[in-house]
């Protein structure tokens, strides 16, 4: 699509960065909790739908922010490697496919269907995580991503976003240098011949970083040098983190549920307060803040719904189907209609992006 013909009104298909963040968190939570192949398949299907909607229907993906590997290639690679690794390392399971000689260290022993399958499922979950991160990264302009960070940490967020922007430039530079070395008669021969590639890449990268730092200084960007945190915010920040950790420990290790939860909540509140207080001292304004509309409510609500069903012990919900474990012998995965339906909560971004295109 010719960018010049894009509507001047920002973002027909845009979704607020905060909503995207919640969606991402829900995907991560769901993929982290369950290895049930049915739920995995559902989540991956919705991810694929979102990808197609973003890339082909809304044209909302920034193709210039090149990624090293497309999710599809990543998936092919990771699923096969993970299956192979698990199959060779874990010798548990009833369905023995082959038996490697016991004399072989580590990999010797039976290779089972169960181990291969479980490895593949892990690979699929990883692929889902990768795809979701890449999708959000390409769908959000840098500015919006920087906004996700609390105001007190704005400068750190800017630095991180710049670091991310360096990846494609560095890849381009790597190609240039490889060509330049080839025309000097360099043939790839062992590790030694990589040095001529790495050194100019490194010095070039440093030079560019310095140039950018200088340009940002000239435009009045002050990095970490301005004292934005006073002693009290520092103390409450550290105390908050410590309390939150202690609360989790109390709850998980010593089983003191209520006390642990209370301690963790107090800790979290302290951290939030400290970040808010630090942010207030950091003067900064926002140019054309992204609006929070119906679609953002839908995305956020959907994400909360999915996350709740996967993570919280909701009363009356049978969560046993989440814990799929193929050893010692394969059993068909369980399925809860409620949890399955809750994965629909991941779909609003796709709908929000398709909607304007249909109109």
């Amino acid at each position: 699509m010719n960018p010049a013909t894009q509507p001047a009104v920002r973002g027909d298909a845009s979704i607020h960065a905060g909503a995207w963040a919640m969606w991402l968190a829900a995907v991560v939570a769901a993929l982290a909790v369950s290895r049930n192949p049915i739920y995995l398949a559902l989540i991956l299907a919705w991810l694929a739908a979102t990808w197609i909607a973003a890339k082909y229907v809304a044209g909302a993906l920034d193709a210039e922010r090149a990624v090293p590997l497309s999710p599809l290639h990543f998936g092919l690679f990771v699923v096969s490697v993970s299956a192979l690794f698990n199959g060779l390392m874990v010798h548990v399971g009833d369905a023995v496919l082959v038996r490697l000689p016991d004399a072989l260290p580590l990999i010797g022993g039976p290779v089972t269907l169960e181990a291969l399958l479980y490895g593949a499922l892990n690979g699929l979950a990883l692929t889902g995580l990768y795809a979701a991160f890449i999708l959000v990264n390409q769908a959000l302009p840098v500015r919006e991503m920087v906004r996700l960070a609390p105001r007190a940490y704005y400068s750190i967020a800017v630095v991180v976003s710049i670091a991310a922007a360096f990846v494609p430039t560095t890849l381009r530079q790597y190609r240039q240098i490889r060509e330049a070395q080839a025309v000097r008669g360099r043939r790839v021969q062992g590790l030694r011949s990589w040095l001529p590639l790495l050194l100019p890449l490194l010095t070039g990268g440093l030079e560019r970083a310095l140039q950018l730092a200088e340009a940002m200084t000239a435009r009045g960007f002050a990095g970490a040098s301005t004292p934005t945190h006073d002693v009290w915010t520092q103390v409450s920040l550290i105390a908050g983190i410590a309390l939150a950790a202690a609360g989790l420990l109390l709850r998980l290790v010593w089983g003191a549920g209520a006390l642990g939860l209370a301690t963790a909540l107090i800790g979290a509140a302290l951290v939030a307060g400290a970040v808010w207080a630090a942010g207030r001292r950091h003067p900064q304004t926002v140019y054309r803040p992204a609006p929070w509309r119906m679609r953002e409510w839908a995305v956020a609500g959907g994400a909360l719904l999915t996350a709740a069903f996967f993570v919280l012990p909701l009363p009356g919900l049978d969560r046993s189907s989440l814990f799929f474990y193929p050893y010692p012998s394969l059993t068909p995965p369980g399925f809860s209609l409620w949890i399955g339906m809750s994965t629909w909560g991941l779909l609003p971004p796709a709908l929000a992006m398709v909607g304007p295109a249909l109109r």
Partner: protein
Amino acid sequence: MIHFRHVSYTYPNAAHPALSNISLDLPQGELILVVGPSGAGKSTLLRCINGLAPHFSGGSLAGSIRVGNLDPVQAAPQVMSHHVGFVFQDPEAQFVMDRVEDEIAFALENAAIPPEEMRVRVEETLDLLDLTPLRDRALSTLSGGERQRVAIAAVLALRPEVLVLDEPTSQLDPKSAEDVLSALVRLNTDLGLTILVAEHRLERVLPYADKILYLPADGSSPLLDEPRAVLAQIDLAPPLVRLSKALGWHPLPLTIKEGLRHSRRRAGNGRAAQPRQESVAESAVGARTPFLAARDVAAAYGGTEVLHGLSLDVYPGEIVALMGRNGSGKTTLLKCMVGLVRPVRGDIRMDGRSIAGRDVADICRQVAYLPQDPNSLLFAETVAEELAITLHNHGLMARRSGHALPDDARELLRTLGMAQHAESYPRDLSAGERQRAALAAIMVTRPRALLLDEPTRGLDYTAKRQLADLLKGWRAAGMAIVVVTHDVELAAEIADRVALMSQGEVIAQGEPAQVLGASPLFAPQVAKLFPDSGWLTVEDALQTA
């Protein structure tokens, strides 16, 4: 407006001061052109105005600087950014965000400008630099000139009274450079903004400059005066000024229009113009076989075909200039000739043999290729080591022989004027020296052909002349040379043949006088002054006149 009093500045760990005892008074509202040989301290001087030196670079500064009623050393860059906008050489190296509008708003957000005012300022700035149609575009989709205009807009949004630009066009092709410079002129004439611009392409800015600030290399006191007065005293000058000085035209013309008044008078009573002297290669071209021959070459780059059945011969002992718009396939053609890009159709022959299936390293022993950015070639500790590594790569020198270079490699360094830099760290050298170090690294195998991609980008007049002399020397020694360039004056001076490319095809080729002289876009200044004379360079004109 800007006052320097006895300012000296030394970079950290530097033996000599970059600026010594400078006193200047730069007037308000003028467009001031800052010129001088590389290493004279132009960049340093500009960086003193907004406090980057010493705040960003460290080092020690003596004397006093005032900008308006502020002292940049005391105020520091964060405050100065509201008074002095600073634009750098490479537009890509100064962007933080990825979209035009976001990039312009970035500095405003940091400065905590209220949102309503921010909207107004961003709109104004977009209008000032004609960026409104591009406001939603990703920066990566813009051309070089558009990017540099966004960079200017990004600093103008803070409404500075002074705009400082450090060689803003040196990385751009002529069309983009023109865009940027005309934007600057508009800002100066319409808003009365004080503008300081360091610039090598004098011919483009001269007509608009109110003053020239000349910084000599030897550290003596700078010259600041009307352009004519300064140009009369210095060597750095575009062809028009050089010719006028040699012929004693007075007052010194700064534009072709002014120059034509003198040249018409001269052509009126002079004898008939003689064609340019015979080029060295004239005799060579007829008889011998081409050293490099591209036959019906088609090549694709990233899925799209960029060369469509192109043919070009390069003979030993001649220089061919390849010219044409950005994206016309010039670089791809060079890459095809050394095997970095493999043609999808057609054939490239080197010395009568096809290069298909041959290794890049193998080809490059015979054909040296200097890419656009010579930095990507350099990585060794010393210049001498760069040469040793190339020799070693080609198996022409034993590994680790203490970098005792063979005699002919030493000789090459002398030819390039780099003998005294043999033990220097390549990346510490000036742009011109770095390029010659890179040339040394690729020429040390004594190749029979040399391909150069935009070799004059970022070079000052002195470095350009040195390069031209080198290439002429190699041509006399029988090398086949191809130069991809936007630099009309360079092509006019050295080329035996010019090939114009467009959309992956050679659309015109022939002698420079025919191809360049006739074109309104590519005609060098001398050809514009003496139309139909067949002259292209100052030397042509002086010899006949």
